[in-house]
């Protein structure tokens, strides 16, 4: 098992939902190899990354009652992840992690970083505070990565 964590950024092109992808972009700029930091569109990509024996760090935008741009850290399991979207083509993150753990397709423990956003519609620009938060989070994660 490598000590180096695997970063996955969840996102889309829509407004603040780009936050996870921006974190990954920034990590690449800092020098994290592409194999260690990947931008994905759907949580179920986790199943196919062969990372069950690695430390997994997820970065995602979230709808959060707090201030836009607020960064929060979650540890899974042990936290009830919000499952706002139910659809069979877009498995909610909690279900993906539970099924992945059951099938040994993802690690038993996952760290999740979220950035609170407010605009998620097609054509929306990313909020300046979300962009800033994504860069800030990536810098912090890179510090941890470079010392792992």
């Amino acid at each position, binding site marked *: 098992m490598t000590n180096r964590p695997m970063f996955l950024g969840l996102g889309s092109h829509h407004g603040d939902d780009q936050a996870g992808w921006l974190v990954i972009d920034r990590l690449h700029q800092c020098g994290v190899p592409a194999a260690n930091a990947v931008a994905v*569109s*759907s949580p*179920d990509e986790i*199943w*196919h990354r062969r990372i069950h024996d690695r430390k997994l760090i997820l970065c995602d935008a979230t709808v959060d009652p707090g201030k836009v741009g607020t960064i929060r850290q979650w540890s899974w399991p042990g936290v009830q992840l919000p499952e706002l979207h139910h*659809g*069979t*083509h*877009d498995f909610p993150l909690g*279900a993906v992690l*539970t*099924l992945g753990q*059951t*099938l*040994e*397709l993802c690690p038993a423990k996952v760290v999740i970083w979220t950035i609170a956003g407010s605009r998620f519609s097609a054509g929306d620009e990313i909020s300046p505070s979300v962009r800033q938060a994504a860069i800030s989070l990536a810098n912090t994660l890179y510090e941890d990565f470079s010392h792992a």
Partner: protein
Amino acid sequence: MTDGETINVPILTRVEGEGALTIRLKDGQLDDVQLRIYEPPRMFETLLRGRPLEDAPDITARICGICPVAYQMSSVHALEQALGVAITPQIRRLRRLLYCGEWIESHALHVHLLHTPDFFGESSGIELARRFPDEVRRGLRLKKHGNDLVAAIGGRAIHPVNVAVGGFHRWPPREELRKLIHDFEWGLQAAMEAARWTASFPYPQLENDYEFVAVSHPDEYAMNEGDIASSKLSTIPVDQYPMVFVEHQVPHSTALQAVRLPARSNYLLGPLSRVNLNRNRLRPEARQLADEIGFPAMCSNPYRGIQARCLEVVHAYGEALEILRELDFSGPHRLPYQARAAVGRAATEAPRGLLFHEYEIDAAGKIVQARIVPPTSQNQGQIECDLRKQLTWQLTTATTREALARQAEQLVRSYDPCISCATHFLKIQWKNS
């Protein structure tokens, strides 16, 4: 929830979209059963009016995240018929390859995560995974193959963007497709194992005298082209669909239901109908497998739809491999056309069954009218009919209300209903005060 006279399943789980089931009893006998679809109507036909015809494939794809390719295929074929465009064999093959990807991802999902838990009394795919980890892992890989194929051709797995009226916006990268061959060789064998697995399932006994309806083609297992075949009436060209199948509204559903004229009877769409009507046009490996697992000729048990899905996954892998090994991108990727005032109709086979599109366009290439009839809305009446039959029989036995509800939900799931598709439109009557 049950209160003695009414059994409510307030939210159907492991189906696409949101629906419910209400079973009303009177003096211990079945009084009424309603598959209640309460998702808000989505008005896609209205949205298309006045738009350039080129918008139709991408807008209609948004009706569904599971079967966007079906909407793209039905829309481009209907519009090409209106425009008098005859696509090349190369474009035709690439469209079949794209459809194979969608069938694989949709069917693999339904077989492994949505429907199989029912046969083992498990409440979810996660519970099933604890009992059958290898099988569920296999299902996830199959689903991913389907998604990868759609993404390689269409640019992305959900709501692909490469399909165009007249062909494709571009030929997909050849190497991206070739890279899939190795996975698909594994997938073909894995799909056959999945079919053998489902042959061992304990199937509830329910037979119905269905009218099976599906697109049928003399030379191939129909996906994009063919006439409309029926197990009870003569085959008709797709152009005659509106004269034979009509939609109507029922109070308990935001999705229109459909019936077959002249008797206004229910009919069944989907994999069971397709395999029953077109079994001899399945690829040899799928046909032989159907014989090996003892899949009945003209199977009329709706629960065995899961086996038909598996046979179609085998077919789709076999056909996809054949096309992937002989990629031919010679000729134009998109044919030119001149806009003209016309009407075009097409029916293709979405994973859940026949999907009909009709467009009227004007001389400037704008959409004047659009009509979309998805498979789940057409199947609603048949689902309720099956529920009535099952419940009527079960009420003569000592089945608990909870078991009645559970088995009714299982029966609904056997159709793999896509409720989001079904609620694309609501017929509105405007009244002047």
